[in-house]
């Protein structure tokens, strides 16, 4: 085996050090700025590549990052390996159970969320190919590429945004995650088919057999091999060192998957991804193992890959504002309209559907990998590649703020977010019944509800079990025919007997009305209110208020203090 010379070894280690150091550094910087690290890593690549470093110091660029020769090939090999491991990590997080649990709504969202952007991309590429490619005869394969590239979403960015917005575990959040997972699964299979078609077009081979082979491979891996892993993983975790044994096992299996698909004439990435799905679905795979693998891949291989992207392209010379705008408009419009419409069809409200559209509009590693392959195969030029990178960067930056905007203050459906000063009253009621009636009237006049029906429901619940809680709090409540929860508060300084466990009179009376079919939401709000006043000082603070505005501002402060 021939070896790298001392200079080549030095060059190779220097290249990796610079790529990793800059990539990680910019990634961390963007993390601090509350942006996706992938954006920082790509920018690090742009700085290190022909766009900036190459412009000022072309010789230095050639020395540190040679394009050919042993060092160039070694860097290329590291990038290929990075892509495989990134795909393995994506596959590991695809949960087939959640796909089944949220099946229908997630499927509808995914269907429209992929179909509409695909049609947008395909139609534009097919009808006006001259904007993007030199040879219009290759429009079909190019149209397939653009349709596929625009139809896929980025699960890590979506998951992170949902966690930041504190809606990860809500029905909406889980549906978005399920849709993003469906999107990944279908996206990667479609991507492999696309590659087979692209390669087949050149060689004149039938495109049917690779498609059948891809679907067959996926089915065998998910139905049979997944079950085998389910039996093997407990043994690996028990008998081998932890976490080294299981991490090594997963990495090796990812590579085995890549080898199998390569041997079968499919692309290596499909093997790594599907192997990840088969492994990750096991109930025995510990959460900490997943996190360690994600950390390992994210902190080593992701920066290397994203920096490499910047090294490949001169972003200044390849930048074409028309193409960038077309890609952005097509990407944003297709995904937001498609996924938003799908969510709406799946039963979500208007604002929530927009939120789904904005979330699914996040793009990431998949688009970049797909575009890189297309670039290497000569299907697209560097200008379109840069357009796709812009789409990834801008959609990643905007997805969080856009979701926030669409959900407004309803986003958490939290108790304090439900209130405005009009929902708070200083009460002089002298009986529990009068106080409940006063609150019911307040809620019903604002929300145009039948007060007799609402009162009857609340009172029925109150009579079955009084709702007095410790620290001068009472929470009369009922489930009624409404779409969103309603909360109103009365402050009664004299106090009323709601039979609280601590025998104190209730002075803060919170009426909670929740939709009939949302048991969990009612429990969540009830426990949230109870927790808010579990500390006596919080109750005292509210009792010592003189106006509804003062009460509201104190509630906001208490809430943020508790967070």
């Amino acid at each position, binding site marked *: 085996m021939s070896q790298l010379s001392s200079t080549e070894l030095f060059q190779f280690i220097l290249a990796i050090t610079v790529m990793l150091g800059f990539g990680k550094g910019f*990634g961390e910087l*963007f*993390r601090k700025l*509350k*942006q*996706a*690290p*992938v954006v920082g890593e790509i920018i690090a690549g742009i700085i290190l590549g022909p766009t900036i470093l190459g412009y000022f110091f072309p010789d230095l660029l050639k020395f540190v990052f040679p394009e050919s020769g042993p060092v160039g090939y070694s860097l290329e090999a590291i990038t290929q390996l990075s892509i495989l491991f990134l795909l393995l*990590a*994506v596959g*590991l*997080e695809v*949960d*087939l*159970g*959640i*796909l*089944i*649990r949220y099946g229908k709504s997630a499927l509808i969202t995914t269907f429209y969320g992929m179909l509409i952007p695909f049609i947008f991309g395909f139609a534009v590429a097919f009808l006006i190919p001259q904007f993007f490619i030199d040879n219009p005869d290759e429009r079909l394969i190019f149209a397939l590429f653009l349709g596929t590239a625009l139809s896929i979403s980025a*699960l*890590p*960015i*979506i*998951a*992170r945004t949902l*966690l930041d917005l504190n809606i*990860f*575990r809500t029905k909406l959040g*889980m549906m978005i*995650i*399920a849709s*993003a*997972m469906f999107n990944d699964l279908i996206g990667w299979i479609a991507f492999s088919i696309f590659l087979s078609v692209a390669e087949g077009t050149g060689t004149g081979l039938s495109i049917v057999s690779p498609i059948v082979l891809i679907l067959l491979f996926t089915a065998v891996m998910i*139905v049979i091999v997944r079950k085998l892993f389910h039996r093997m993983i407990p043994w690996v975790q028990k008998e081998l060192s932890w976490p080294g044994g299981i991490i090594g096992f997963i990495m090796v299996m990812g590579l085995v998957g890549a080898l199998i698909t390569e041997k079968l004439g499919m692309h290596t990435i499909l093997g790594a991804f599907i192997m990840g799905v088969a492994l990750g679905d096991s*109930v025995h795979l510990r*959460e900490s193992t*997943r*996190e360690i693998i*994600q*950390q390992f*891949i*994210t902190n080593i291989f*992701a920066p290397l890959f994203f920096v490499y992207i910047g090294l490949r392209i001169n972003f200044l010379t390849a930048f074409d504002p028309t193409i960038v705008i077309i890609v952005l408009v097509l990407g944003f419009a297709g995904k937001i309209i498609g996924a938003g419409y799908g969510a709406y069809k799946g039963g979500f409200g208007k604002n929530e559907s927009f939120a789904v559209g904005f979330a699914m509009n996040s793009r990431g590693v998949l688009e970049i990998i797909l575009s890189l392959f297309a670039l290497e195969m000569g299907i697209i030029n560097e200008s379109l590649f840069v357009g796709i990178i812009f789409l990834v960067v801008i959609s990643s930056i905007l997805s969080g703020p856009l979701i926030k905007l669409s959900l407004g203050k309803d986003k958490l459906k939290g108790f304090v977010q439900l209130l405005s000063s009009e929902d708070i009253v200083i009460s002089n009621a002298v009986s529990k019944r009068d106080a409940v009636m006063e609150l019911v009237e307040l809620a019903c006049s604002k929300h145009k509800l039948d007060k007799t029906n609402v009162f009857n429901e609340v009172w029925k619940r109150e009579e*079955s*079990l009084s709702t007095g809680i410790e620290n001068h709090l009472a929470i009369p409540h009922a489930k009624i025919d409404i779409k969103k929860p309603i909360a109103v508060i009365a402050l009664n300084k004299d106090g009323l007997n709601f039979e609280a466990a601590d025998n104190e009179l209730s002075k803060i009376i919170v009426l909670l009305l929740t939709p009939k079919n949302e*048991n*969990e939401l009612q*429990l*969540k709000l*009830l*426990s*949230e209110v*109870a*927790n808010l006043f579990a500390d006596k000082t919080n109750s005292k603070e509210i009792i010592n208020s003189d106006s509804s505005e003062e009460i509201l501002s104190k509630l906001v402060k208490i809430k943020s203090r508790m967070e």
Partner: protein
Amino acid sequence: MGIPFKKIGLAITFSPTGKALLYEAGRLVKLFAAEIVLIHNGEKTLEAETKLAELIESAGFNFSSVNIEWVKGDIADTIINKAVEKNVDLLLVGALEKENIIKYYSGSVARKIMRQAGCSVLVLTSPSETPVSFKKFCVSVDYSMQSENAIKTAYDLAMLEKAEKLILIREIQAPGLAMTVQDSGSMREVELARQTWAKEEKDKMEMLIKEMNLTEIDIETHCLYGKEGYEANKFVEQINGDIFVVPAPQKKLKLFDRIFQHDFEFTLKQIPCPVLIIRNPGK
């Protein structure tokens, strides 16, 4: 305190397990002051009738006053249909803790009844001729109406049994959470998110207990993080639960749900202890 079941159905066979199940049924009939319907799949011959009479009387029932239904055909289907016809609200069946892979996927009689019965089902893996009462009740919670119904039934049953403890189990899972570390998250943040969710779930369960006014028995709440269905099953096994009460799935489970395991299928695959599947009659 309510009586959860008024009519108990039992598919009677001549096997040793069948005999033990009859004894178990006898105990429950007394406990609930319920009526019993015995369903026997087979030809009604004099010999079979005599043998059945001996078996029934040995378990303490009066043969002449017991309602026996003779059925023929697919065992599971006939039992399920007869139970519906006779308005049975609890079917008692015996089952192996775990079946071999082929049987699991092809579907055994007991598993088919658990999946498809129109009423609640009590599954006993080790029925005994000297049955004992259940002391440690575990209930799976998901806040649905079915789940509330399961908690209420478990509570009533626990009161009747003078049980030591009722344990409410809530499973939570956030698929894709580990992936947030890929996009600027840290393991500490992820762990913090999990802890916050677990606390929220505990609070909700405590509130549920108050809402349902479950005051007369010692109740514990547990929030488990992991694959829903699997974690609760494992937990019940680990703490040696005496009975695991679960709401029936809201749809009929098919082969697809065994391949891409539905939450409920984890319990069917490895039955951790006696399992009571709560199904609302007529739903």
